[in-house]
């Protein structure tokens, strides 16, 4: 093992491919801090970072044993790129599964009257407010109405809105801003107070 620590990454890679398992130990020990720090900086959760770290090195091992590693650059950069791709995969998987965790709080976030079932009166007020807002939204210019509907009725992100409407994210944000300003103006003109408790 001591002998291997003197070898370069490329020599260790060749040695591992040649069947020397201690070479991969040295490579992992040499680069684990850099790779793990990068993953943790991105995902900010120890357990998740450990999972991605493990998956990244398993991919590294599989690729090396399949002869997929091309000696075309730094070994650590290659491993970092694998970790990066796994982080992106994780983000994309999470896109439709946003989880709210209660674990980090001393009190129960969800044990609140705000989440309790609404009374009939609350429901009537809520429906009325929604209907008023809905009618105000129809008065907006088409491009602003479209952004409000996509954001608040379909729940799309501004990036998704920008893609669907064929404009930049800044334009979508600008349209939303004008839409809100117009809605506020329309409410004032009609003396409407749309407050939800």
């Amino acid at each position, binding site marked *: 093992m001591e002998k291997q620590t003197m070898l370069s990454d490329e020599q260790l890679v060749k040695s*591992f491919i040649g069947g020397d*398992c201690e070479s*991969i*130990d040295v490579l*992992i*020990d*040499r*680069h*684990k*801090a*850099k790779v*793990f*720090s*990068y993953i943790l*900086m*991105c995902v900010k959760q*120890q357990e998740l970072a*450990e999972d991605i*770290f*493990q998956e990244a*090195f*398993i991919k590294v*091992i*599989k690729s090396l*044993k*399949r002869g997929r590693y091309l000696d075309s650059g*730094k070994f*650590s*950069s290659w491993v*970092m*790129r694998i970790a*990066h791709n796994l*982080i*992106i995969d994780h*983000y*994309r998987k*999470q*896109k*439709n599964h*946003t989880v709210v965790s209660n674990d980090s709080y001393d009190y129960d976030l969800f044990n609140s009257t705000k989440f309790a079932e609404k009374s009939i009166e609350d429901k009537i007020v809520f429906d009325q407010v929604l209907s008023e807002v809905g009618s105000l939204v129809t008065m907006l210019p088409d491009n602003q109405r479209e952004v409000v509907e996509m954001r608040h*009725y*379909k*729940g*799309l*992100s*501004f*990036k*998704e809105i920008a893609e669907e409407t064929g404009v930049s*994210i800044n334009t979508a944000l600008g349209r939303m801003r004008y839409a809100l300003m117009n809605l506020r103006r329309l409410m004032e003109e009609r003396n409407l107070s749309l407050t939800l408790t």
Partner: protein
Amino acid sequence: MEKMFTRDLLCLEQEAGKWLEFFDNIPDDNFEHCKIAVDAVTKRVKAFARVYQSFTIEGRDSGYIIN
């Protein structure tokens, strides 16, 4: 309503890309004495390296574990 919440995926991806560039530019030697708590994971990965065998079947990569 199809979705109530979405995360700004583009922003997260860009942030990950910037961190990648940042870390990639730090020389590997700077991490030599850096202490991180991933002993259990590295142990598992090292063990995997010893038991995993790859092979190709009909042109497709595959692998198996020898315990």
